[in-house]
């Protein structure tokens, strides 16, 4: 039998603690929705209100979010894998076998990490395609595009450094080939390869260096860039959208109905008589100086909705789909692990990871042009895209007619690279000779 006095004296304390952590109760008014987004650490990264156009799944395809969530999964599974991994040429491969055989959930975590990594490369690339094909790099979003290209490069480098860590045949030869490509860079190539490997060939030093890059340096760089990338979305006025979106008729104002405060009802019978829902005068605003193309709250007719719950539900759904996808793939397919490194016997053909097979195919024609020259030009052009193409038309729509030429050129670039990857993956056999997969 519990003493009612005790339980009632406990209750305020619990409420107190709860309220001190979650300053806002679940919001039931617009004011509440605004301050929930505003006062919660995890939510304050988001705007209080978000444009309806930005919530269209068919516009963004959620690709940026998926890429971020995959990175999140990679960080979590990566940290867990670090508990059992040793970056040593004599132990690394055995640890891979241990993940398979003895570590609880080891194989599953490795699968999740490997498949998320592949997925992240693909999704980051697709995200870039989305941004280009909707013309979203146009002013004022030029620099965020540049950050995005850098993020793609860091993602590739992260994948590349992770590739060596299992210390199997695939890893060893892919890195041997990959770092040799780097050595073709003019002037600094040889030095760069030596510094990257810490030796003249791939060995213990290279494994340690790649490990440090993979688990510390590159994730830190990526996190910083992601933070700036997200921050700039806010500062650039949210996601891109066609200008005419803002001119569309505003949906009928959702009049905010709130209950009169209970205190008023208790103290004044007159107010209690008028206890009907009353219109609350909006007496809040965004703090600070708001200039430029920001999502505006309240004072102008706009087509935005509150981030809580519209944006957060959308993000939650994307997160759940991403996690479900990774879990499913990891249950169905095991991450490949080849024979342990055998320096005497390079596999024939020795192939890089799929996203570098286009590069490897180019390299088979000319090491300098295929591995350094053309990729260098491609990256440079990608970085300069928003500064070359400055016409502000057709922003915020997929395949806008006004952007026919730009989209055509970009799609050519995409298709050529995809074809090269397909050739490298399926049509190259021993000695990199042309073979038919059928």
């Amino acid at each position: 039998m519990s003493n009612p006095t005790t339980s009632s004296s406990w209750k305020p304390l619990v409420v107190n603690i709860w309220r001190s952590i979650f300053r806002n109760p679940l919001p039931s008014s617009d004011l509440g929705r605004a301050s929930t987004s505003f006062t919660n650490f995890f939510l304050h990264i988001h705007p209080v209100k978000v444009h309806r156009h930005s919530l269209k799944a068919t516009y963004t395809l959620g690709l940026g979010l998926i890429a971020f969530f995959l990175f999140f999964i990679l960080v979590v599974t990566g940290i867990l894998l670090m508990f059992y991994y040793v970056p040593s040429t004599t132990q690394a491969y055995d640890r891979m076998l241990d993940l398979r055989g003895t570590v609880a959930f080891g194989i599953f975590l490795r699968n999740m990490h490997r498949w998320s990594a592949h997925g992240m490369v693909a999704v980051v690339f697709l995200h870039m395609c989305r941004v280009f094909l909707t013309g979203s790099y146009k002013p004022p979003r030029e620099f965020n595009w540049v950050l995005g290209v850098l993020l793609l490069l860091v993602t590739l480098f992260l994948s590349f450094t992770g590739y060596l860590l299992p210390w199997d045949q695939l890893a060893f030869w892919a890195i041997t080939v990959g770092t040799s490509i780097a050595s073709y860079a003019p002037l600094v190539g040889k030095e760069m390869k030596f510094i990257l490997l810490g030796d003249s060939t791939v060995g213990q030093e290279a494994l340690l260096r790649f490990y440090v890059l993979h688990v510390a340096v590159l994730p830190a760089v990526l996190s910083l860039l992601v933070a700036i990338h997200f921050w700039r979305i806010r500062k650039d006025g949210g996601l891109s959208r066609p200008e005419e979106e803002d001119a569309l008729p505003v949906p009928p104002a959702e009049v905010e109905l709130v209950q009169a405060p209970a205190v008023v009802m208790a103290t004044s019978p007159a107010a209690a008589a008028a206890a009907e829902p009353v219109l609350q005068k909006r007496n809040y605003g965004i703090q600070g100086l708001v200039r430029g193309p920001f999502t505006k709250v309240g004072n102008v007719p706009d087509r935005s909705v509150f981030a809580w719950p519209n944006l957060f539900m959308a993000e939650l759904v994307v997160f759940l789909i991403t996690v479900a996808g990774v879990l499913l793939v990891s249950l169905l397919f095991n991450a490949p692990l080849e024979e342990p490194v055998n320096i005497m016997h390079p596999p024939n053909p020795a192939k890089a990871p799929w996203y570098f097979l286009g590069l490897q195919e180019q390299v088979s024609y000319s090491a300098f042009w295929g591995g350094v020259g053309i990729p260098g030009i491609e990256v440079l052009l990608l970085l300069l895209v928003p500064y070359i193409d400055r016409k502000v038309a057709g922003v915020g729509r997929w395949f806008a007619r006004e952007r026919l030429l730009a989209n055509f050129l970009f799609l050519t670039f995409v298709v050529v690279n995809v074809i090269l990857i397909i050739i490298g993956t399926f049509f190259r056999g021993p000695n990199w000779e042309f073979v038919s997969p059928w």
Partner: protein
Amino acid sequence: MKTPVKPALEESGDAMTRRRLLSWLSGFGLFGSLIITAFSNLIFIKPRATYGQPNRFSIGRPDDFPSGARVSLDERRVCIVRDGDKIAAISTTCTHLGCIVAVSETGFSCPCHGSRYDQDGNVTGGPAPRALPWFQITLAPNGEIEVDKDTEIEAGNYLRV
């Protein structure tokens, strides 16, 4: 009567005021230390000693290699060629992208991107940009053959044993 006002130095555009000089100097100082820091880091991560395979090593006595032998020492990444009393060491690191080339009937062939070389290491096909280098090979006082991978010699320079 008005006292003539001396024009403030800051206003005359090009003049070097004390403030401007100090700003320049501290700017240089900060930027300079940034560059020095970057360079120091670069020097730091470039290893002074390596822990892998040494580039000078001995491979045994000449008798270990019978005439006509083409023995590929994959761990050393070098192929020992003996023809009568002539002996040489040819690199087996593909000049294209650093894979280890395999000894084939016609010479060497690379499994990675299909480069092919003849018996002397000259390119006969594939993307390899240049021939396989030959390494300096000497007879040490103890009668063993020593290969020095730091010194490349012209193709066709055999050591007579």
